[in-house]
């Protein structure tokens, strides 16, 4: 199955090399997708506080999220918390 991965928020430039789409096994879950993303990020793994969202639903952060099966065409959006001022 193919899913879309989007990374935004703090240090988004570190994820500039991420492919837009990831090909995953048909039974893959969010956990598998995160492992694939981290593997692709290599030098800069996802920050622990990064929010994990799928298809517009917030599942938690990298350290604590509710895993769930993925569906073809899902968008995994990863949001590194920003503050700024």
């Amino acid at each position, binding site marked *: 199955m193919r899913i879309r991965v*989007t990374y*935004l*928020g*703090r*240090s*988004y*430039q570190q994820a500039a090399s991420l492919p837009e789409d990831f090909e995953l096994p048909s039974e893959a879950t969010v956990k598998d997708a995160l492992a694939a993303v981290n593997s692709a990020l290599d030098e800069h793994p996802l*920050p*622990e*506080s990064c*929010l994990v*969202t799928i298809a*517009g*639903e*917030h*599942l*938690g*952060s990298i*350290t*604590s999220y*509710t895993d769930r099966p993925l569906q073809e065409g899902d968008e995994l*959006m990863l*949001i*590194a*918390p*920003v*503050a*700024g*001022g």
Partner: protein
Amino acid sequence: MTDDRNSHHPTLAEPLQLTPEELERYDRQLGPGVLSEAGQLRLKQATALVTRVGGMGGPAAQMLAMAGVGTVIIAHGGEMISPDLNRQVLGSEQVLGKPRAPEFAAYLRTMNRLIEVEAVDHEPDDEEARRLARRCDIVLSCPPTFTERLRLNRAAVEAGIPLIDAAQWGMTGTLIVVKPGETACLQCVYPVEPPFEELFPVVGAISCATGALAALEAVKILSGTGDPLFGQLLTYDGFVGRPSVVKLRRNPSCPVCAHC
């Protein structure tokens, strides 16, 4: 120090209605698709706390003041420095080296003499944040650290008033709108405080846009207009030009909001 110099509010003995001058001032935001006169009156009776008033909080406070929020309290410590001037719209070349809060408040007063502006010249600690939140109808959280944001969240949840968290990094802006007891609060979203980056990069246009959107949500909530983004995270990835909305999950065992 709290600076509360101008006082144009009606006293309790005066009738609660919009004056002809206010009706003229707010004429372009009254009518179908915008605010009703009753909504504008609710704004007049409202108090909003904005902390801090730099890149995001500045334009947010300005839009609240110009929209006619009766009392706008701004909090910001320190003196204005040159790198502030790529985004801090309440300042100017003339304010460099001067304390931000009173100068910014003075500027806001030049934008609308029909409201009150109070200046707090430091970032409130836990107790002061609580005290301020109890006086307010809404809190706009725009500081650079998560410590301050989570503090404002606790104060707002405890006071039972909405909180709008506006944040930015580089060309990205995010907005979280909290309704205590009904939606996720900031602590639900950030159970572990994310790291602080003192010299974060930022382009003024994104901070201004994010602050303006925070003010729009506040105007909607305070006036009872439209559908606020309660319980949602709005992001704008300005680097690629893409907005998104995420529905936030409430933590049933959140130490801040679980019992409200």
